[in-house]
């Protein structure tokens, strides 16, 4: 018999910027993936102690319990305004909002557009899961045409409820935006791309290049009535065709950046 020496090698650990607690997210929900990516980027940039996060109203309302840095919690939709207040008095800190699609693209559309137009030097992590997760899966501005939700039981009828909003494309038209992209969290390749974008978003802020936003296509298996695996597939098959992954605004200075 051969003698095998087992050498322990750590390949996966909790990022320092994540608190050592369990989240309340449902199994298969990609909110947790998004959290982890943000935490990894903050660790890599070494900015944890210089961070102030702004949580929104939605399933991520308790984000402040999961990130291990200073946080405040905003009224529904108002996170960009609150973040503006923080950033204007602490211009050398990093300020991030973490918002869902109902929060950002419905009740908070005014605040996000104004913040982007001002070129507010904040980073927005925008989770688009095509419904209002926290309140039980009602129709959101991002709900796809024909998509069934608890408040569009027959499927979203665009004649009545209008059309979904492509937030990233819309905000990218504003001169104050420095970096606006859409990514997806449905498979490892896309998750890696998402992480790189989150890094670039924070680099945008670091270099004072204006407003940055990463829209992340995300799952809500619970309210979609799908298994976690089916939900990932639905993102790929149904969401991505309507919400293409892409770079909608990238300040040229970012292209020269060596990370």
């Amino acid at each position, binding site marked *: 018999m051969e003698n095998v020496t087992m050498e322990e090698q750590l390949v996966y650990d909790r990022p320092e910027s994540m608190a050592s607690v369990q989240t309340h997210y449902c199994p298969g929900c990609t909110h947790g993936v998004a959290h982890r990516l943000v935490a990894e980027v903050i660790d890599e940039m070494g900015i944890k102690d210089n961070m102030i996060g702004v949580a929104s109203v939605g399933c991520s309302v308790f984000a*402040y319990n999961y990130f291990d840095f200073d*946080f405040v*919690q905003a009224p529904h939709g108002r996170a960009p305004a*609150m973040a503006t*207040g923080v950033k204007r*008095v602490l211009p050398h800190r990093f300020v991030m909002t973490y918002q869902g699609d109902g929060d950002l693209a419905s009740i908070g559309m*005014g*605040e996000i557009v104004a913040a982007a137009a001002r070129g507010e030097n904040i980073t927005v992590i925008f989770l688009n899961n095509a419904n209002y997760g926290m309140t039980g899966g009602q129709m959101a501005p991002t709900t796809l045409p024909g998509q069934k939700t608890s408040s569009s039981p027959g499927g979203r009828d665009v004649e009545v409820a209008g059309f979904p909003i492509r937030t990233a494309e819309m905000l990218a038209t504003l001169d104050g935006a420095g970096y606006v992209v859409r990514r997806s969290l449905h498979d490892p390749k896309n998750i890696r791309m998402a992480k790189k974008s989150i890094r670039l978003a924070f680099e945008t802020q670091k270099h004072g290049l204006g407003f940055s936003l990463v829209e992340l296509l995300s799952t809500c298996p619970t309210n979609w009535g799908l298994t976690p695996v089916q939900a990932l597939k639905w993102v790929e098959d149904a969401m991505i065709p309507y919400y293409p992954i892409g770079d909608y605004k990238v300040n040229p200075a970012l292209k020269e950046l060596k990370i």
Partner: protein
Amino acid sequence: MAKELMKGNVAIAEAAVRAGLNAYFGYPITPQTELLEYLSSRMPELGRTFLQAESELGAINMVYGAACTGARVMSSSSSPGVSLMMEGVSYIAGTELPVVLVDVMRGGPGLGNIAPAQADYNQIVHGGGHGDYHPIVLAPANIQEAIDLTYGAFDLAEKYRSIVVILADGSLGQLMEPAELPEMKPAIMRTPDWATYGSEGRERRFLTSIDLDPSQQEKTNFRLEHRWQEIKANEVQYKEYYLDDAEYAVVGFGTSGRIALSAVRAARAKGIKIGLFRPVSLAPYPEKELYELSKQLKGLLVVEMNAGQMLEDVLNITRSQIPVEFYGRMGGILPMPEEIEAEIDRMVNDPTETDGHPRDRWLARFGKMN
């Protein structure tokens, strides 16, 4: 320091600057706009933050965010804008943050007009936003008082982690009067043990107004109520005029109190033993003081620029033990001293039956105006 001739809105703005205002966020609305316009050049000149927000909703939430960091912050608006701020006001109260807010009231409801009114009394003094909370509310009646109250408002807000509202009206905002400004302080950025300004060298913190556990939420509610008791015990402010030997009194706050003083003087000249009680802190209200005063009175006249909002509080405080009458103007109209004097005469010389509600009697007398 010498007195300068100043417009109310500008005087309030400069008093806030001198109190160490670090950041101002606001949105234009008449009759408050000069306050914002003045700060748009004054704050940057001093290297401090001024930002015109996208709305009052934006402004109050910017104030909310900035207050979380320990900065001295303020916003200002007028009635319709203040209505829009109510969501943020409730959150700020729920998060226990020090914030100063100026409401230069105008005629309403709805868009109303831009003339002076006092019809935000209920919205400001008795809430407006959801949940149990109590802002400190201070009502100046002249420009010097507006300066002094604004200057002190930040310390008060920080002492109790409370919202302080300077409740003025359009005429005070627009009026010009000589007044003296206080000493200039540098922009104030505190680091109290609750503030979130980046966690370097300490444990991280968070500020929130949510608590899904009702028993924990109730603890917060009790803490706020106990703090309010403390504020009630320590922060009452009021002014008394000619009350020592008074048999009658007028109660009025802010501009209506100021106008009533002229009427009181005219009535005194005619030999009527009347004085003026002017609450300066509307919250906490000078309850004990007014009740004690009421014991020496034969009658009391409440004058307001609304349909009797403070009147309800006065009735509560005086416990129906003395006759109370009411005179109000609304819609942006100031009561004239002669009108108030006529009401004083009626109260003293012709005390008809005092059954029913003073508002009903006032309406019966004046409600047929058009």
